[in-house]
Structure formats: structure tokens, C-alpha cells
């Protein structure tokens, strides 16, 4: 090899190596995901806003075959029962929660998703307030604030009264929350709804009106949970009966599926029904055999997933993309009726009967005409209610009406707990009890435990969580 050639070769190969920068060598692409700073701009807000809306959708009634709030609460109450082999779902149905360290995939996920949605809706609302020139006039702000309030209400209605609300911003951990009782949670939710009400009142667009009514119903629900009947009625007074706020679902991706449809399609959950009676655990309501047009149903072509339980599906949700009513004018009226029954003024029975008289239109507006059948034939007509005459019977009647009107929308568990907490009923007189349909007997839980991971919060300990207390 000639010396000159060799020298040139050395220089040609070695010099670029000597000059190379290791930082450049270690630079890699990330085409799949975005980073928070890239979207914290005015142009990025629609994407962030949609994300927060989506987080609430998943938490309340989505997440495909994974359970979230609406499904687990329907399971613990008398709305749905397990046709599954999953021990976690059976435990929820049986009111016999696993100890937290063992973990219950379904109720744990519901808790996680609600906290996630609470954080997300609040965080993006704050981003809108920070970035948009007139944040409070932007209808997206009150909508997110209201949804944040609903997430807190759901945490309060479903879980034992020791729920911390910790904070984090942009993935950075901020403060660890102190466990809150159900009442404190409702009070906290009310502050979010009030924030939403104040902001929504600043605008006059349809979006503002929708956010306003959403916040009103949310406020009413939170106040009702704290036994503030008159204030609750006042909060919802302006909500028209025609108002509907949907949690939107889609068949575009599995996580967007309407979860109750997906789980019933997969035969995991069934409406309470068998050949003997369809009152789950003695105290359950006859959602199937009553052939009530508010709880339409149809049979699955096969048995439940456990190969034993008859699978009866709710006619409210007949596709993966079936939307769920989060808040509407019916609920506003029901709140007014309950307030009236508790002496806040008004004729509680008339309010209920007005709704019943309009059942076809109200149900069709929400779920479409094709769903209003019971087992393939027309459901029964609704006759006007008569006053049962005693205070307890009136309460029973009111809560039965709420159960049918608000069936499978995430209200029933909260109502059963309210019956215990606010109306002095015994847990075993309102919750399913006695023999469980797959053998053994029901447990005594009235709410869900908080996931074991929360013990990573030094402010929280397992002993604070009592699943037997409404």
C-alpha cells in the first residue's frame, strides 16, 4: 500500500469518526406520541379539549370490555347481574368485594378512570383559562368544569367515603389529597358545578346553554346527595325537560364502545332475570317482568358467558355507539319531585305522572323508537301513579320511578346508598340480599373499596375505607 494512499485512507475514515458527536448518534425519533408542550397552544386546545371529553366518556360509560363507572355500579345494585366467570365481576354482583390487596380489576378500574377524568377535565379547563384570551366566555371551559364535577359525584356515589383528590399538572405530581367523606366530595363537586354555572352564564350560544343545563343538573345531583333537597330543586329549576346531555360513544375504536352494550353483547352482564323471578336478591326491582317501556329488553341468542345464566339485554343500548344520557330534563324533574316529597314545595306525584304520561316521547327522544320493546313485543303502557299513602311507600315509589327512568345511566347505586343514608333504610332492605343466583349468599357491601394503590398515598390507609357504610 502506498504511503500516500494509506495516509489519505486513514484521514478519510478516521477524521469523520473523531469528529462525530455522540449526542447525535443517540438521537432517536418519536413519531407515535406527542409531548405536552407541543399542544399547550391555542391551536392545540381543540385536541386537548376533545381528549378531556374522551377521558370522561371512557370513565363514565366506555372502556369497551373493561368496566367503568356505569357498569360496575349497575352490577353492585339491582340493575344488572353477572353472567360471567370472572371472579371480580361475580364478587361485585354478590356485594362481596375482594380485599383491596387482592384487587378487583373492575371496580379498581372504575376508580382509576374517574380520577383520571377528574384530573384531565380540570387540567384542560385550566389550560383553556390560561391560554384563551377570554377563557370564561369559551363554552368549553364550563363544560369541562361540569364534567369534572360529575367525575367527583361519581366517585362519591360509588366508593367508600374516604376518597382523596390529589393533584397533578402536566404529568407532574403536585399535592397528595386527604381522604374525603361522601358529603365532602359532593360539596367539592358543587364548587366545580358553581364554577361551571358562573362561566356558562357569560355566554349565550347553544354550547353555553348546554353547559349551563349540564352544570345545573350536576349541581342538583350533588346537593341531593347531601340531602339539600330544596337547594337541589332550585338548582335544576331552569332545566327544560327536553334537555339531554349525552356521553357520546362510537364504534370507531374499542375504548369508545358503549360499555354496557359491549359487555352484554359479550354475555358478561345480564339484566336481572330468571325463570323464577327477576327481582335481584329479593329487594331488586322487576326491570324485565314489569315490561316497563323505560326498561326495554331483548334476549341474547346465547346463554351468558358462564354458560348458565340467561342473557337479557337492555334495549336502551343496541349498538357499540349507543350514547348514554349523563344528565337530562327528566332527572331535573325527578330532583324536583324528590324535593317536593321532602317538603320543598310542589306536587311530587304530579311531576312523576307528567313524566309517565309522556314516556313514549321522552324515551324515543333519548333512545329511538326501535328500542321500545320488551322481549320482542310492545312494552306495557304506563298508568298514572296513585299516592300510596304512607311516607315510606311514597319514598319507595319515588325511588322506583327514578330507577326506571334512570336505568343503566349510573344513578342507581347512589340512590340505594341515599335510601340508607338519607331515608334511614337498612342496607338489606334496599340492596340485593339472600341467595345469590350462582350459589351462596349475598355479602353486605354497599359501595366499592378504594384500590390498593391508593395506599401509596401516606394520607390514606385501608382502614379508612368501609364498604359497609352508605
Amino acid at each position, binding site marked *: 500500500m502506498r504511503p500516500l494512499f494509506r495516509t489519505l485512507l486513514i484521514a478519510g475514515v478516521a477524521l469523520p*469518526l473523531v*469528529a462525530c458527536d455522540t449526542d447525535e448518534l443517540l438521537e432517536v425519533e418519536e413519531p407515535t406520541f406527542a409531548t405536552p408542550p407541543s399542544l399547550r397552544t391555542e391551536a392545540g386546545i381543540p385536541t386537548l379539549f376533545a381528549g378531556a371529553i374522551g377521558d370522561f366518556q371512557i370513565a363514565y360509560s366506555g372502556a369497551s370490555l373493561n368496566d367503568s363507572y356505569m357498569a360496575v355500579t349497575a352490577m353492585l345494585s339491582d340493575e344488572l347481574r353477572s353472567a360471567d366467570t370472572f371472579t371480580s365481576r361475580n364478587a361485585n354482583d354478590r356485594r362481596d368485594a*375482594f380485599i383491596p*390487596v387482592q384487587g378487583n380489576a373492575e371496580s379498581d378500574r372504575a376508580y382509576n378512570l374517574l380520577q383520571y377524568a377528574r384530573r384531565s377535565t380540570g387540567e384542560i379547563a385550566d389550560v383553556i383559562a390560561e391560554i384563551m384570551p377570554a377563557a370564561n366566555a369559551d363554552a368549553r371551559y364550563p363544560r369541562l368544569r361540569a364534567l369534572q364535577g360529575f367525575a367527583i359525584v361519581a366517585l362519591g356515589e360509588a366508593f367508600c367515603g374516604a376518597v382523596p383528590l390529589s393533584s397533578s399538572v402536566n404529568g407532574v405530581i403536585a399535592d397528595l389529597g386527604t381522604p374525603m367523606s361522601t358529603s365532602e366530595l359532593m360539596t367539592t363537586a358543587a364548587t366545580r358545578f358553581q364554577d361551571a354555572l358562573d362561566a356558562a352564564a357569560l355566554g349565550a350560544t347553544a354550547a353555553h346553554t348546554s353547559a349551563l343545563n349540564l352544570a345545573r343538573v350536576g349541581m342538583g345531583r350533588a346537593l341531593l346527595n347531601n340531602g339539600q333537597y330544596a337547594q337541589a330543586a332550585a338548582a335544576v329549576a331552569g332545566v327544560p325537560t327536553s334537555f339531554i346531555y349525552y356521553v357520546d360513544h362510537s364504534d370507531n375504536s374499542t375504548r*369508545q364502545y358503549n360499555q354496557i352494550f359491549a359487555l352484554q353483547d359479550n354475555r358478561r352482564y345480564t339484566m336481572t332475570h330468571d325463570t323464577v323471578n327477576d327481582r335481584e336478591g329479593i329487594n331488586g326491582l322487576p326491570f324485565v317482568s314489569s315490561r316497563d317501556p323505560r326498561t326495554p329488553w331483548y334476549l341474547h341468542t346465547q346463554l351468558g358467558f*358462564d354458560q348458565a345464566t340467561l342473557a337479557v339485554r337492555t334495549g336502551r343500548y343496541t349498538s357499540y355507539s349507543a350514547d348514554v344520557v349523563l344528565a337530562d330534563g327528566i332527572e331535573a324533574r325527578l330532583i324536583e319531585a324528590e324535593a317536593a316529597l321532602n317538603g320543598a314545595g310542589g306536587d311530587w306525584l304530579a311531576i312523576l305522572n307528567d313524566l309517565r304520561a309522556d314516556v313514549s316521547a321522552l324515551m324515543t327522544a333519548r333512545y329511538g323508537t326501535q328500542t321500545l320493546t320488551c322481549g320482542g313485543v310492545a312494552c306495557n303502557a304506563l298508568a298514572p301513579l296513585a299516592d300510596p299513602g304512607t311516607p315510606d311507600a311514597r319514598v319507595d315509589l319515588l325511588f322506583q320511578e327514578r330507577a326506571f327512568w334512570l336505568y343503566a345511566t349510573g344513578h342507581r347505586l347512589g340512590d340505594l346508598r341515599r335510601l340508607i343514608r338519607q331515608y334511614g333504610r337498612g342496607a338489606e332492605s334496599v340492596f340485593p340480599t339472600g341467595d345469590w343466583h350462582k350459589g351462596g349468599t349475598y355479602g353486605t357491601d354497599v359501595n366499592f373499596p378504594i384500590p390498593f394503590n391508593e395506599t401509596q398515598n401516606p394520607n390514606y390507609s385501608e382502614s379508612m375505607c368501609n364498604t359497609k357504610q352508605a
Partner: protein
Amino acid sequence: MIRALRLIAAICVIAAVTTADLAAQETGVITGTVVDQQTRQPISGVEVSIVGTTQSAITNDQGAFLLLRVAPGRRVLRATVLGFAGADIPVTVQAGQTARVDIALRVSALQLDEVVASAVTGRVERKRELGTNTATISSRDLERAPITKMADVLVGRAAGVQLQGVAGSIGTSQRIRIRGANSISLSNEPLIFVDGVMFSNTRGGFAVGGQDYSRLNDINPEDIANMEILKGPAASALYGTAAANGVILITTKRGQAGNTRWHAYTEFGTSEDITDYPLNYLPYMINADTANLFTARGNLNEGSSTSRPFRFCPNYGAGTTPNLANGSCRQDEILTLTPLTAPGLSPFVKGNRTKVGLSVSGGSDVVTYYVSGDIDQEQGVISFNEQDRVNLRTNLGARIRDNLGLNINAAYTRSTLALNGNDNNIFSPLINGLLATPFVPTAEQRAGSPAGSRFGTGYGFFIDDLENYKSDQVVDRFIVGASSNYQPISWLTVNGNVGLDFFSREDGTTIQPGRLPISFSYVNGWRQSQRSNNYIWTTNAAAVGTFRPMEDLGSTTTLGGSFSREQFEMTYCYGVGIVEGTSSCGATSSLFSVDEGYTEVRTIGAYLQQQLNWRERLIVSGSVRGDDNSAFGQEFGFIYYPGVSVSWVASEEPFFPETDILSNLRLRAAYGKSGQRPNVRDAVTLLEPVAVASGNTDLSAVRLRSIGNVDLKPERTTEFEFGFDAGVLSDRVAIEFTRFTKKSVDALVNRPLPASYGLTGDAATTGSIFDNLGSVKNWGMELALNARVLNIPQASANLRLSATTLDNEIIDLGEDIQPIVFNRGNQQHKQGFPTGGFFGRRYEIVNPGQQRVLTPADVIMVDDTSVFLGPQLPTSTQTLSGDITLFRNLVTISGLLERRAGHKQLNYTEFFRCQTGYNNGTQGAARGQCQAVGDPNAPLEEQARFLAARFGATTSTGTLSATQAGYAEDADFIKLRELSLTLGVPQSLSNRFSVLQGASLTLSGRNLKTWTDYTGLDPEINETGGGANFTQGEFNTQPPLRYYTVRFNFTF
């Protein structure tokens, strides 16, 4: 460090192009044979190398070797082979002359001169130079063993190396653990190199219930020349950020100068499921129609409370003693059956394997070659669990010049796998059998209902239904590499290698419409498909300078650098409503989903190693390596991994008494540090694009995907080991003893956050953050005894015994971090206990001596909180293997026994069988059907663990709480893994066929016998195969199969 790296690069380049004149001089030849000193039999496979050069040759079946183009002068030949003591023979080579050297090797069970080639530096070192205990598995160990796949090679052959989670489904993966588990949240798998190219053992494919897919088995065991296992950082410090869990170095076969050698083999065999499956129980009341069991079954209707299995009698849960004779809990008969083995119901067939292969090797003084091809087909005991594999390999070696060698290796693998539903999947044949009613369905019943409702199976599926559910995986894999060693001047060698491990993987599942009509998507049929490309580029360069500053002191300095790049890219599609007979996402009509993914990791490293060698018997080495990685935190740069080792062959000291009793003694000690990088995205907070419904449209949106930690640095594991190698009785017995202690610091803990932060979402958003928090310690002992029991011309016998102990403890989980719980609450990472230990609340039986039907009140809780039940990793392992060769290699018998003990296995199969039921027809309810539920005479322990798990027991604080502790069983076992008989062809017969150099017939069996008190399906299977880091338990998992194999070998 950056400067050092640049300097190294420059040195390598300079060295690579300087001086070419050495090649021009005239050369000589060395030839000869190698024989057994005692028997005078030729020894094949001996590596004969010229010390100080890169030249070497391998002896053929006649023990002959040939080294061409040897530079003239005084040379030292070094002969090494497993089973014999190495020998250094001086020889003088004259230009144009042939020097003949015949070498006689002494049988030795002690292997001090066996060589290990570093995949990083390219250096070849003798074991006596290493301060660590490095395990070796050679092709000789595998020749007669019933090896069905690469994973079998690692079972029971190296102390401290374990394959865990070995299931019987074809194509599935296992965990490899070397000296325990270092990392709480990162992988505990070793790094693997094949001929210096980093090998991807990543798993992946569509989930089918539990078992994961194996990439390890892409390697063809037939091609392996040897495997070296560096068991931990003390040995693998130079491998840097990735080597904390040890390194497996696989070297494939290469050609030898001399005659062309053909090797052909064919293998065929059968496999069978030999599991003793538990019976399914059904207690029932005989009614008027006693002849008709099916009618009797009707009495079990839930609505009729007169005939429930006694566990489900009214108020049973409340403690009422059931009345078994009359009334509501009457049971006249108990029907038992296991459909998994019942004729006409069993889903199992006899599996079969065929394998055929051909290799040719040979070469000249300039070029050597090894070319092989292998076709391996296997059908499992589920008829549609099949795998076809084709392996092709070409290894070329070239001596371009006397001082320049080049090796090129190219391998291709095509694997086609169909994997059935398994474990936690309603389409698993096992789950349908283990949960089935103990009735044999009539033909009408079989045909009378759709798939998903078939009477007589757990979830309503017969095996012919289940064939419609499987996941297909096709892998095309190329591993190509080139390595060179260049000796520009006598004291300097430059080694370099570059390689690529690439595989494309196509995963697909197609469910044809109506075959499994259980829900919308199955009624209409669906398809999912993922196509991915996986790349690992490996580049290493090192300059090795050898000096002799004093006559008795040698010095070797190694300076080098590495760069690796791992890249993964994939596309995915899903759709529902598929056109009958098609299998394409394009043929679906609704519920579409698509995805695209990309990840990339880069690592750069540089190292310096200095070795001092005093008279070949005291060797001290020190090294340091620095690494930087794209996954480290933003604030983090290079990290350094030091290593030091000492090896002293004391028996070669003049003062050491010469005695046959202790014929050899080496003392060794080593310390080293290696690391493990964080996962690709752990340092970055990321938002995941998702779709969100808004009215009738879907919007683009994001959700928080992961929470990054910009301060992340690699987890570092430090290991110290010491021990000795001793030759006893004239080296007929070798004893290796090692004591090791490994400790991970800055252990990356995937710290679960309180969900109240709102950072824990669904499965894709874990709500945890990686932090360098913890510390894990593994310590134990390894004892290996290798004895040449007999060595005479007519017979020889070897016996190998190894015993290891392992202790493992989480020293620190991080301040204020509560235990990390997983596996349905049964395992925890908890400070002060072993990683992934089993925890639970223990219970006991009131009045345990009295056989009876227990009620919940008979079971009381011992513990108020979960207590440690036992470790996940075996704490004690022993293997015993041996071979006897008779009649001059005409007959060889070999076998392998393994014992593992001290650990737990979760018998979730039985838990679930007790909790869940069978298809009881259109009216019945699902009920448990294990013996504890169905048989009043079930052992008390069985009843108690069911009751404790189902109804719970009351703690001292009055809380009623369930526990699955009874299903975390002791998993001790002994297994007869391998047994084989090989018959050779007498020399007189092979002499009649001039072409035929050798032939043999091997009859072998694998998984022949298990001794265990474990009551589940198998003590070592795992629900997730090799896919989970610590999760351990069976859940309707296919146990290992028993194999019988016949193999013919021909050499010509």
C-alpha cells in the same frame, strides 16, 4: 469518554490500514493428530491454535488437523477440547516445510484451558484467565440429548441457569433466569449474542390467553458449536448497559481445513400429554328417571332448591351444616369424569415431530465453510397447534492474509406457527375440559346447539369448534454478521465485528363468520393483523495490545468501542364483518381499527481493559466501560461500569504439593458492574393520540399516556463472586465452587402512584412512574462436580452433578413505597422479602383431625394481614446427568435429572375450577366442580382452601375476608428430563462403505417422569409463559409434553 471513543475509532482505523508487508513472507505447515493419552483413541473437535496468532484448526473424526501458511519460527501450539486437559506444544516451523506434531491429551474433568470468545472485544480467553465461573455447553453435550428446540439446551445444563415456565404448547416462550432476578420492573432476561451479533429474544404476537411466543427457538440447536454463559456483572462488565442479567454467547459451527465433511440427520418422534388431570365432580339426586342421567341433571335447576350441590345449599354460606341424605341437600350419587382424557371427549391427539437436516463443512488453508439446512415440523397434542421451521446457515471463514482473518456468518430462519387458545381463554381446550360437566353428551346434544352452547364442555366448545380460533405467526429472520481479526504487528491485534439481527413478523387472527357465534364480532367474523420489523445492529471494534514487559509477566491491553441500535416498527389493523373464506382486514366491513408504531434505542459505549499475566498462573484483569443510551434521562450522560478479576492456578506454583488427590487447584475472584437501561419511553411524558366521539363524528384527541422522569439513569448491578476449581484424583473429578453476591442499586422501580393523582387510566396508562429507587440482592452458591468415572478403551462414563442455592431479597423498594401487588393479589414486591414473593393470609381448620364436611365456620383465619408464604424463584436446584459409553462408542446411554425446590406455584387452575362451573344446560347455574365442591369426602385441606377462598374466614379483628393462600402450593419437584440410548456403527461396518465415516441411531425420551407433591397440573408451568417478569402460576396451562424421538445421524 467521548474523546476516548474517538481515539479508539481512530486507532482501529489506523491499525486496519497500516502495514501489509507481513503477508508477503514465505510460510510453513503444521499437521498432526490429537489422541486420548490413555486410550490412544483419536479425539475430534479439538481446537488447535497457534498462540499469539489468530490461526486455528479443528480436528476431524480421525483426530487430524492441518495448519497452513504458518509464519516460520518457534511457535506454540495450543490444543483444547472439552473433557481433556489443554496442552501447549512448542514447534519450530521452517519456511516451505511441514512440521508434524502429534498431541496426546490427558483426560481431565477440569477445564482450565477451554476458551471463551468475547462478543465485545473479540478476544479469545482461556478460562484460567477469567476470575469468574463461566458455564459452557458444547455441541458434544447436545449430540445425544433429546433436544426439540433451543430452549431445551438451557434446561439443567449450567449451574445457576434456569428456564422457567416451560409449557407444552408448541412455539411458546420461557423465562431465562441466571442467578436470580435483579430487577423489580425491568427485564431479567440475559443478553444473547450469536456469533457476536446481538440477538433479539423479544417476545410478542397476538395474545391467545397466556402463553407468549418464543424467539429464542429461532436458533437451530444443530448449528451450535458451543455456548458460554457469563452469569453476571462480574463476568459481563465489559458488556455494559444491558448485561446485568448475564450474557449468553452462542458460537455456531464452522468449517475446518481438510476434507469435505457431510453430516445428515433425520429425526422423528411423538409427543403426548401425560398429565394426570383432576376429575370433574357432579353430585346429584336420583329422581324417578334414574336411568337417565341427563334427566337427573335436571334436578339441579337453580330454581329448585331441593338438589343443589351441597356447597350451594341454602344458607350454606351462613354456616348451616348441609344435610347430605335428605331434603334440600340430598346427594345420591357423585358423578366424576375428566373430559380431557375420556375417550371420545379428549381434545388431545398424539403429537408428532419430524426433522431433517444436512450440513457440509470443510475448506482449505484460505477459506473454510460450514453450510447447513434444517427443516423441523411439529404438531402438538392439540392438532392445530403446529410449527414449521426452516433454518439455513452459511458460515465462511477466510484467511485473507496470514495476519488477517475474516468470518462471515449468515443465517435465515422461517418459522410458521399456529397457536391455539390457551390458559385464560374460553377458546382453550383445557379450560373447556377442566370446567366441563361430567356428562358424556349424546350425539344429538353435540349437534343440537351452536358453538358456545355445546353441552358437556366448560364454555360450550368442542375441539372442532376451537380449531376456528388460533393465532398465526410467520417470522422471517436473518442474522448476518462479519468479524475480522487483524494482526498488523506482532503485539497488536485489531478485532471488529458488525452484524444485524433482523426479523419480520406477521401475526394474524381470522375468525370466520358464524363459527364461534358468541357476540357481534364473532357472529360476523373478524380479522386482526400486525406486521412488524425488528432490527438490532451491533458494531464493535477493539484493539488488543500484547506485551511482555518482563519475562514472566504478560500484559494485554484492550481498547474498544461499541454501538448498537434496536429498532421496531409495526402496522396493525382490525375489522369486523369479514367475507367468508378471506383473511384480510380489507375484507372486513366495520369497526375498523388501525395503528402504527415505532421505537428505537441506541447505545454507545467505550471500554478499556488491562490484563496482567504472571507465568500463566496468576492473572489479574481490570476494566472500565462507559455507556450512553438514548433511553437515559435528559440530564444524564455516560455511566461507567468497572470490573476486576483475579485468577490464580495455585497448583502450578512450585510450592504446591504434587498429589493425585488434589491434582489441580485454581482460586478465583471477580467483581464487576453492569447495567440495564430504562425502557424506551420511560424518561418522557407522552400524549397518546386517540379518537373521541362528538355527536356523529369522531375528533382527534390526546390522552396522557405515560409520565416521564427526566432524571432516569440505568439500573446498576454489582456482583462479587469468588470460588475455586479443583481437579481431584488426577483431574478425573473436577469440582467447581462459586459463591456470588449481586446487588442492584438505583433499581428502576415502576412506582405505582396513588390513583387519586388522576394519572392511572386504563391498561395503556399505567399510572406509575419509573424511578431509580430500589435495591435488590441475590446471593447464593454454585457447586458443580464433573467426574470421569471410567475411561478405558471399551468404556467410559461421566457423571455431572450441580447444586445451587439462591437467596433473593428486595433490600430497598424506595422510601414510602408500599408493596407492589400483582398476580391477583397473590404476589408482591415487598421490602425485606424476595422479589415477587407469594403473600396471603393463612387459615386453619378447626378440629382438623375429624374427616367431615366442613362449613365456613370450620375455617378460621390465622393472619389478620397478608404474610410471606414463599418465594417465586427456587431457592435450591440440583441436576444430575451422566453418560455411559460402551464398546468403543457403540453404545451410549445418557440422562438428565433436575430438582428444584423452595419455591411456590399458584394453582389458579384449581381455584378457578372450584369457583366456576360447567355448562349445566339451559336451566342450570354454573357451579364449581372440583373435588372440594362436589365430594363430601374431599380431603379437609381441599375443602378448607376452597372455603377460605370462596366464603372467607374471620380474622381476629372480626373481619370476614377471603384468601387464596391455600392455592399457593409448594412447587418442589424432581423431573427426569432426558434419557437417551445411542447406538453407533462398528468401525468394521463403516469401513465397508468408503464414503460413510460414521452413523448412529439415538432413541430418546424427554419429560419422562415428575415427582412432586404439587397438586396442580404441573409445578413449573406458567400462565404467561415467558411473558411476565415475576408472575408465577398455572391457569389451565398446557403442561409439558413427553417426547419420544428416534434419530439417525450419518457422517460422510
